[in-house]
């Protein structure tokens, strides 16, 4: 049987995720149809075999055996295709999230909009209910809470929008730049994501709680956290740099205008 193997095109790089899913669904439907036909044929043959025992029983038995083998193969192929379909849909979803997150992070040079995007990624793609974006102060002794969602007075480590240390998971991540997933003893943090600019750890995104309908961080979330680690800080710093330069430019232009009037 060649049905599922027709998927030679599946590996083709020009086939998009959506097309791949469509192809797999089509192949799956065809394979299921084939299984139904084979089952029908098999039932017919078995009836014939029972009804007319004198008609070449050996040949009929062999034919039945062949069809049963083909049926087993088809069923195996259907299961494999179903599994590949689920994997493909999963991959397509991951790639969509990563594409949209990257696109949106770098779509603006306004620091506030970059921060909004980081918050939107945390809420809408990760499902984070409580989180904080920590950025190291220039003296590097503490971190400014540049962005937070859902923090309360009970979150004393972030009081006054400053984090001075105290959570072992966050401190370790700020120290060595390794993404850590929790919670663990002494830390309620679900994820501490290092933020890097030119291999320098400039802060961390701290996920403290997820929405009820998303009980755990899944494997695909790890990709998103990695992306945030690599892109969030650089997008934010590029935007802040641009804003600072823009302010300086405006000041200089004002000075020039003033000087010309005088």
């Amino acid at each position, binding site marked *: 049987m060649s049905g599922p193997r027709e998927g030679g095109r599946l590996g083709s790089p020009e086939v998009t995720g*959506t097309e791949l899913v469509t192809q797999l669904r089509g192949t799956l439907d065809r394979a299921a149809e084939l299984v139904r036909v084979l089952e029908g044929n098999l039932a017919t043959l078995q009836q014939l075999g029972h009804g007319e025992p004198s008609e070449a029983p050996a040949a009929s038995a062999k034919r039945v055996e062949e069809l049963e083998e083909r049926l087993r193969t088809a069923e195996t192929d259907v299961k494999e295709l179903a599994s590949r379909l689920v994997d493909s*849909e999963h991959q*397509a*979803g991951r790639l*969509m*999230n990563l*594409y*949209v*997150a990257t*696109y*949106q992070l770098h*779509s603006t040079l306004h620091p506030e*909009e970059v921060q*909004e*995007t980081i918050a*939107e*990624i945390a*809420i*809408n*793609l*990760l*499902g984070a*209910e409580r989180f904080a974006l920590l950025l190291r102060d220039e003296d590097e002794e503490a971190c400014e809470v540049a962005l937070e969602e859902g923090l309360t007075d009970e979150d004393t480590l972030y009081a006054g929008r400053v984090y001075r240390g105290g959570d072992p998971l966050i401190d370790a991540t700020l120290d060595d730049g390794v993404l850590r997933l929790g919670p663990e003893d002494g830390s309620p943090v679900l994820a501490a994501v290092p933020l890097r600019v030119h291999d320098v750890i400039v802060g961390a995104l701290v996920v403290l709680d997820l*929405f*009820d*309908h*998303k009980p755990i961080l899944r494997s695909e979330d790890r990709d998103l956290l990695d992306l945030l680690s690599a892109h969030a800080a650089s997008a934010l710093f590029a935007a802040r740099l641009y804003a600072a330069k823009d302010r300086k430019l405006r000041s200089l232009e004002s000075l020039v205008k003033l000087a010309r009037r005088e």
Partner: protein
Amino acid sequence: MDPKKVLVVDDSKLMHKMYEVMLRQYVLVHAMDGLEASQELEDHDDVDLVLLDINMPRMGGLEFLEHMGYQDESKALPPVIIVSTEGKEEDTQRGLEAGAVAYIKKPFSSVQLTAVISEMPDDVRSREQA
């Protein structure tokens, strides 16, 4: 249900981009809050489905449903799917009571979203019917 034109209402630019990627098969109309959405519905009388966020500035999802009169089943309005973030059951319930026909919670995958859309019956409230 197989809609042709979908109005997506969300205050998140990220979500609008996500809808663009997930719902390529449909023509999308975008609105950032309930007020914009009501205007877009006036401008696009061929919208046949609305994806509606709950929490938005100026006019949220529940206020939009009330403002448009979704509780009046005789009104010619496209069906609404509520897109909720918080997982607050009471908001979702209030939305359904206010005239929405289905809901989905963020974060969701394109498979989940298209499943919710396609599982909606064709005879659900529509402009043509009303």
